[in-house]
C-alpha cells in the first residue's frame, strides 16, 4: 500500500505562517495538517472541537471556558497548554499584530490561564460566531518557543510535521508519530505548485501528481471523469462570486441602473462559458448550501429587454461606459469577457482592465477606483461586509446595518435564521451587486483515494484522513 502522496495546488504559499498572511495557499498546506486551533472545520462546514476538548459558555455569552486535550505536544516536543493558547490569542489581537484576520479577535478583552488545561476567554459582547471564528486558520495555536521561524519552519500540533520546502517547486510533510489524536494513514505528503492550467492537466494526465485540489481548468474535467484512472470531486466553497458595483459612483448610485445590470446578466451563460457548468447560481450574497440560504435568483432574472427599459427609466436610454477591473482568477477573466458581451448587448460598454492581485487590492479594492469588478468572496459567512459603508462597493444602508447589529447580539438559532433571511433579501432587492454564482471547487484525484475533503468551507487540504486503496 502506498503511503505517500503527491498533492498539487495552484498557488504556492508565500510562507507557512497561517497567522501572518492572507494567502489561502498557506492554509491549504498547514490547516489541520500542521496547525490546529481550539475548534476546527469539517468538510461539510460544521465546527467541531479541535485542541479544545470541550467548552462552557457563560449565560451572558461573554465568557468562554475551554478545556484542552491532555497530552498534546508540539512537533518540537514542547507541550501544548493553556499558556500557548493565551500566547496565540494575545499575539493575534496585539497592537502590532500582523494577523490578516485581526477582526476575528476584536471582541476579545481578556484571555486567562486557569490551569494548564483550562483557559478562559472573555468577550466584550456576546458573539454568536466566536467558536466559528476560532476554527479559522488564522486562529491556530502556536508556541512562543518556535514563533520566530514559523514562516519557514512551522511547528504545530497537527498529525503531520513540516519536512522540507523546495521553494517554487514542492513542499513535503511527514507523519507525526506522536500525534495526540488518530494518526494519519499517510507517511508523507508532497505538495506541488502548478499554476498553469495546461501544466496542471499534463501533470495529472502524466500521473506526476495524485491529487489536484482546485483544478484550474474545468473544461478538462469531463476527460478525467471519463478516464478510469481518475475520480473527480466537485465540492462547494464559501466563495460568492459577484459582479461588484461601485455603489457610490454614478450611475451605479442609482438602484435602477444596478437593477438593469443585474437583469442584463445571464448567469447560466457565465457558468457554462467561464466555468464549464461548475457553480451554483446565487441571487444574493449567501452560500446556497447554508441552511439559511434564501433563493432570490428570481429577483434578477436574465431579461435584457427589462434591463434596457430600466436604463431608459434611469435616464440612460443609450447606455453608458464604465470600467470592468478583473483580478487574475479565471472566473474573473473568463467571466468578465462574457459579462462584458452581455452588458454590451443592453448598451453598457465596459473597458476591461486585467489587474494583478496587488494592483487590484491597491486601486480597485483599496482605492475604490472602479465601476465594475468581479471577485469571489471566499470568507465563510461574510454577509456582514455589506454593513460597512467603507467596503469597496460602498453600500450604505442603515436598515441593513441595523439588521446586522441585531444579528451579532442574537444567539437564538431561529431568530438568527430570520435576520439572515432579511439581510439576504435587503441586499438582493437593493441590487447592491450582480450576484453570479457560488464558486465550486473541483478536485481531481487518482481513483481509489479516499478521505479527501469534498467541500472547502475554508481553504484546506486536510490529509489526516486520506488513504490509498
Amino acid at each position, binding site marked *: 500500500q502506498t503511503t505517500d502522496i503527491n498533492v498539487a495546488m495552484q498557488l504556492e504559499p508565500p510562507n507557512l505562517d497561517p497567522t501572518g*498572511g*492572507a494567502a489561502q495557499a498557506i492554509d491549504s498546506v498547514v490547516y489541520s495538517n500542521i496547525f490546529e486551533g481550539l475548534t476546527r472545520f469539517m468538510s461539510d462546514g460544521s465546527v467541531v472541537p479541535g485542541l479544545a476538548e470541550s467548552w462552557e459558555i457563560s449565560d451572558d455569552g461573554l465568557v468562554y471556558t475551554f478545556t484542552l486535550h491532555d497530552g498534546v505536544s508540539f512537533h518540537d516536543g514542547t507541550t501544548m497548554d493553556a499558556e500557548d493558547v493565551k500566547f496565540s490569542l494575545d499575539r493575534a489581537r496585539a497592537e502590532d499584530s500582523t494577523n490578516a484576520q485581526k477582526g476575528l479577535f476584536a471582541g476579545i478583552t481578556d484571555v486567562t490561564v486557569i490551569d494548564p488545561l483550562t483557559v478562559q476567554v472573555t468577550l466584550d459582547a456576546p458573539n454568536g460566531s466566536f467558536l466559528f471564528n476560532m476554527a479559522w486558520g488564522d486562529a491556530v495555536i502556536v508556541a512562543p518557543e518556535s514563533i520566530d521561524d514559523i514562516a519557514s519552519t512551522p511547528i504545530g500540533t497537527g498529525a503531520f510535521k513540516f519536512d522540507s520546502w523546495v521553494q517554487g*517547486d514542492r513542499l513535503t510533510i511527514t507523519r507525526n508519530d506522536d500525534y495526540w489524536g488518530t494518526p494519519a494513514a499517510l507517511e508523507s505528503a508532497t505538495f506541488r505548485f502548478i499554476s498553469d492550467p495546461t501544466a496542471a492537466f499534463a501533470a495529472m494526465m502524466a500521473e506526476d501528481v495524485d491529487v489536484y485540489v482546485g483544478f484550474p481548468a474545468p473544461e478538462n474535467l469531463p476527460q478525467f471523469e471519463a478516464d478510469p484512472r481518475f475520480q473527480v470531486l466537485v465540492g462547494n466553497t464559501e466563495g460568492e462570486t459577484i459582479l461588484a458595483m461601485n455603489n457610490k459612483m454614478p450611475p451605479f448610485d442609482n438602484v435602477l441602473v444596478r437593477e438593469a445590470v443585474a437583469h442584463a446578466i445571464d448567469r447560466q451563460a457565465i457558468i457554462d462559458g467561464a466555468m464549464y457548468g461548475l457553480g451554483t447560481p446565487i441571487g444574493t450574497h449567501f452560500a446556497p448550501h447554508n441552511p439559511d440560504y434564501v433563493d432570490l435568483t428570481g429577483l434578477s432574472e436574465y431579461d435584457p429587454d427589462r434591463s434596457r427599459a430600466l436604463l431608459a427609466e434611469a435616464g440612460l436610454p443609450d447606455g453608458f461606459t464604465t470600467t470592468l477591473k478583473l483580478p487574475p482568477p479565471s472566473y474573473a477573466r473568463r467571466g468578465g469577457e462574457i459579462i462584458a458581451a452581455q452588458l454590451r448587448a443592453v448598451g453598457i460598454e465596459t473597458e476591461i482592465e486585467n489587474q494583478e492581485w496587488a494592483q487590484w487590492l491597491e486601486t480597485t479594492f483599496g482605492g475604490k477606483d472602479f465601476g465594475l469588478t468581479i471577485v469571489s468572496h471566499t470568507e465563510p459567512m461574510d454577509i456582514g461586509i455589506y454593513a460597512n459603508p467603507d467596503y469597496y462597493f460602498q453600500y450604505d444602508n442603515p436598515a441593513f446595518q441595523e439588521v446586522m447589529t441585531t444579528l451579532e447580539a442574537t444567539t437564538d438559532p431561529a431568530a438568527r435564521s430570520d435576520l439572515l433571511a432579511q439581510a439576504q433579501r435587503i441586499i438582493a432587492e437593493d441590487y447592491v451587486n450582480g450576484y453570479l454564482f457560488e464558486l465550486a471547487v473541483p478536485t481531481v484525484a487518482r481513483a481509489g483515494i479516499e478521505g479527501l475533503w469534498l467541500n472547502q468551507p475554508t481553504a484546506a487540504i486536510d490529509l489526516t484522513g486520506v488513504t490509498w486503496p
Partner: protein
Amino acid sequence: MIRYTLGRLVSLGLSLVVASLVIFAVVEVVPGDPAAYMLGVNARPDTVAALRAELGLDGTVQERYLGWVTGMLQGDFGVSYTYRTPVSEMIGDRIWVSLPLALYALSLSVLIAFPAGIYAASRRGRPGDIGVMGATQLGVAIPNFWFAMILVLIFAIKLRWFSAGGFSGWDAGVWSGLKSLTLPAIALALPQAAILARVMRSSLLDMLGEDFIRTARAKGLSRRQALWRHAVRNALIPVLTIIGLQFSFLLAGGIVIEQVFFLPGLGRLIFQAISARDLIVVESVVMLLVFLVIVVNFAVDLAYAAVDPRLRTRA
C-alpha cells in the same frame, strides 16, 4: 589586452550602476503594496501599517535604494517580503534550475545549429541547403510556448517518455535532473537553433567569398577542407555575438517556459514576485539577470579575442 579588459570592466561597472537605478525606479513606481497584498481583503489598516514597518517599507526612497545597493555589494540581497527568507538563498536555489536549463538549451542550440549551418553553407543552393533553411524558417516562426505545449502533449501525455513538468532536483542524480529539463530545453533551444543556424550559414558564406579561401583552395585544399579549416573559425565571430545574446535570452526568457513546465527557476520566481509585489525579490533578481547578461557579454567580448588574434593587440 589588459587595457581592453580594464576598459570593458569600467563600462561594465557603469552599466551596472545605471541598471540598478533604472530597476529601482521602475519597481518603485509599480502600483501595489506588498503588505496589503499579503494581508488580503479583510486586513485592517493598522495591521497593514504594522506589517509595512516590519518589512522596512516605510523608509525614504534614498534610504531604501542605498540600503539595497550596499546590501548587494556585501552579498546581502535582503529578505523577501512574502517568503520571509533571504533573497540570496532563494536565488541560490533557483539559479540551479535556470542556469543549467539555459546552458542545456544553449548546448542543444549550438549542437543543432553548427552542423546544420555548416551543412547548408557547404551545399549552398542545393536541395540540402534549401531543406535546412526551410526548416530554420519554420523554427524561427514557431512561438516557443506553443511549441512547448505541443511537446508536452506528445512526449508527456501521449508517449509518457518525460514527465509533464516539474524539476526532480539534482539530489536525485544528474541524469534525472537533466531528464526533467529536457523538454523545456528543447522547447527553448529549437527556435534559437534555427536563428543560430541561419547566422552560421550566412556568416560562413561570407567567409567563403573571402580571398583567403581562394588562397587556401590554391594550396590544394578541397572545398570542404577550406570550409572547415579556414572559414569556420572566422565565421564564429558573428555567431559568438548571437550566442551571447541567446544566452541572455535563455536565462531570463525562460519565464513562459518555466511556467508551462512549472519549473522552480528564476523566471517563475520573478513572475511570482512581481504579482506578489515582493519588490526586493524583483529588484534583486532583475539586477542579477542584468549582471549575468553584462558578464556574459563581457565574456563574449573576451571570446572574440580568443577567436580573433587581431583583437588581442588592437585593443
